[in-house]
């Protein structure tokens, strides 16, 4: 009967060696795997000391803001070799912006959608759009039954109407309430903005918005050099990093300088109206006083600053065909326009 010799810690048995080396290899590869994202890291994506310690937009001094704008200019020049004019326009006193959209006129041509992408440096790859044009059957207002992927040879379609939806710049915005880091807030002129450098990408705001107005950058926004719009502002259309939320800002880099939003300028039928609701002579004030106006999802109580209105007429294309409205065949001679 042989007894195993007492194990000497100094001795290295064959089994012990194999076990230890396998554990070492496994541990080393696990470490390598954990560090593997570093292989994809572009040194340009690393924040500088200054941008790492950049404060919240509203806590920055004037000099710190100017330095932040300069950093944006530099990063744009580095990435696209484009000389950007990065501004930071302040809200004007006595101005509260309101949008109005004439549902009787909108034809669903989607020019506003594309003009917005072009103006606001939105990602082309992957695709990201602020405005969603909903096509709905005439006589209904059920967004659940709407279709924003409609493909038609020609618009408007006689049986449908069109309801473009973008950020409604609510007076009681749920997206602002849910942000855990106060990266989004409402400005005095009514525009809800985002500090893209403060956003942590939790997407609570995206879930809270009843109008599906917010978009998340799942990957680094892809824009070609010739597509970059050099007219930028800190709170609106400057390039966004991956992992942050963005949305319509009523083109504040344009509108705070008195210009019109890009979607309005592109509208071929004049369905879009924009202005200062505190000015009784503004176009939107007249619309709110005299037209039949409604807001989307009034029952959720967010008090949108985006209003839809009607004219005293049938929408373009005339009344809906009789059989679509009633489900019956039209009687003889019933031909309406």
């Amino acid at each position, binding site marked *: 009967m042989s007894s195993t010799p007492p194990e000497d810690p100094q001795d290295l048995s064959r089994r012990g060696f194999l*076990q230890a080396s*396998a*554990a070492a*290899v*496994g*541990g080393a*590869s696990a470490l*390598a*795997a*954990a560090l*593997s*994202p570093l292989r*994809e890291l572009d040194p340009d994506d690393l924040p500088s000391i200054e941008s790492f310690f950049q404060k919240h937009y509203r806590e920055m001094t004037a000099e710190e803001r100017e330095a932040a704008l300069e950093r944006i200019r530099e990063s744009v020049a580095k990435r696209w070799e484009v000389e950007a004019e990065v501004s930071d326009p302040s809200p004007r006193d006595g101005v509260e912006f309101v949008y109005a959209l*004439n549902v009787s006129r909108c034809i*669903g*041509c*989607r*020019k506003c959608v*594309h*003009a917005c992408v*072009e103006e606001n440096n939105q990602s*082309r790859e*992957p*695709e990201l*759009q602020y405005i*969603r*044009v909903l096509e709905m059957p005439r006589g209904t207002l059920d967004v659940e039954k709407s*279709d*924003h*992927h409609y*493909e038609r*040879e*020609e*618009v408007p379609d006689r049986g449908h109407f069109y309801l473009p939806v973008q950020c409604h710049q609510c007076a009681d915005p749920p997206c602002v309430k849910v942000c855990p880091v106060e990266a989004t807030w409402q400005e005095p002129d009514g525009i809800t903005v985002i500090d893209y450098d403060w956003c942590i990408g939790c997407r609570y705001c995206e879930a809270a918005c009843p109008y599906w107005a917010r978009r998340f950058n799942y*990957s680094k926004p*892809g824009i070609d050099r010739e597509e970059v719009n050099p007219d930028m502002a800190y709170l609106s259309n400057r390039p966004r990093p991956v992992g942050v939320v963005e949305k319509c800002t009523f083109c504040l880099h344009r509108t705070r300088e*008195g*210009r*019109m939003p890009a979607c309005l*300028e*592109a509208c*071929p*039928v*004049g369905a879009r*109206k*924009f*202005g*200062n609701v505190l*000015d009784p*002579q*503004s*176009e939107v004030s*007249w*619309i709110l006083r*005299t*037209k039949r106006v409604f807001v989307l999802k009034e029952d959720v109580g967010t008090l949108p600053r985006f209003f839809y*209105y009607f*004219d*005293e007429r049938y929408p*373009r294309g005339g009344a809906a065909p009789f059989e679509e409205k009633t489900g019956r065949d039209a009687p003889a001679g019933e031909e309406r326009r």
Partner: protein
Amino acid sequence: MRLLLAGLWFALAAWFLLGSSAGREDVLGELARAPKINPLELSTEPLRFPLTDPPHLTLGGVEQRCSDCHDLFSSREPTPTTLLQHRGIVLDHGLNDRCYNCHSNPERTSLVLRDGSEVPFGESTRLCAQCHGTLFRDWERGMHGKTLGSWDPASPDFVRLQCVSCHDPHAPAFESFTPLPGPTPRHPRPQGGRPR
């Protein structure tokens, strides 16, 4: 036992190393098929450039005033017929189907109101207002039509386009438009149904 654990670790590590980036590229490829934005489709110019005073046409490369011809040739009393001249004009304006409802008869460089008073081409809005009163009221307040330049009525850049900057006075109804491409569906459109 420890060997088994180490092997598991090793396999896990290899999976992370080899599999981590391949899957992400597939997802991106799926999302990346967005149509190009065409700036030519997005002109912010008015749809039409109406005649300015004095009205003129370019014929054969030469600029002609209306009166250059119409002082020589008087036109027939108008009835709704096809014009032998001005063949580019299609008159499709509802009941308003006579040339001299809007154009002044001897004085061809101006338009005419119902009361016979003459209106220059640059003020054609007054002519439209005779029949389209409610629309004119809306247009005056900016509830109809298009405003460019500035949202502030007090701004010098504030420009409200005239009726004829968008509507062809001879055929005012808009043509149908071809819509620009919609957002790329994230999931294929189900048969006969709406995409999700």
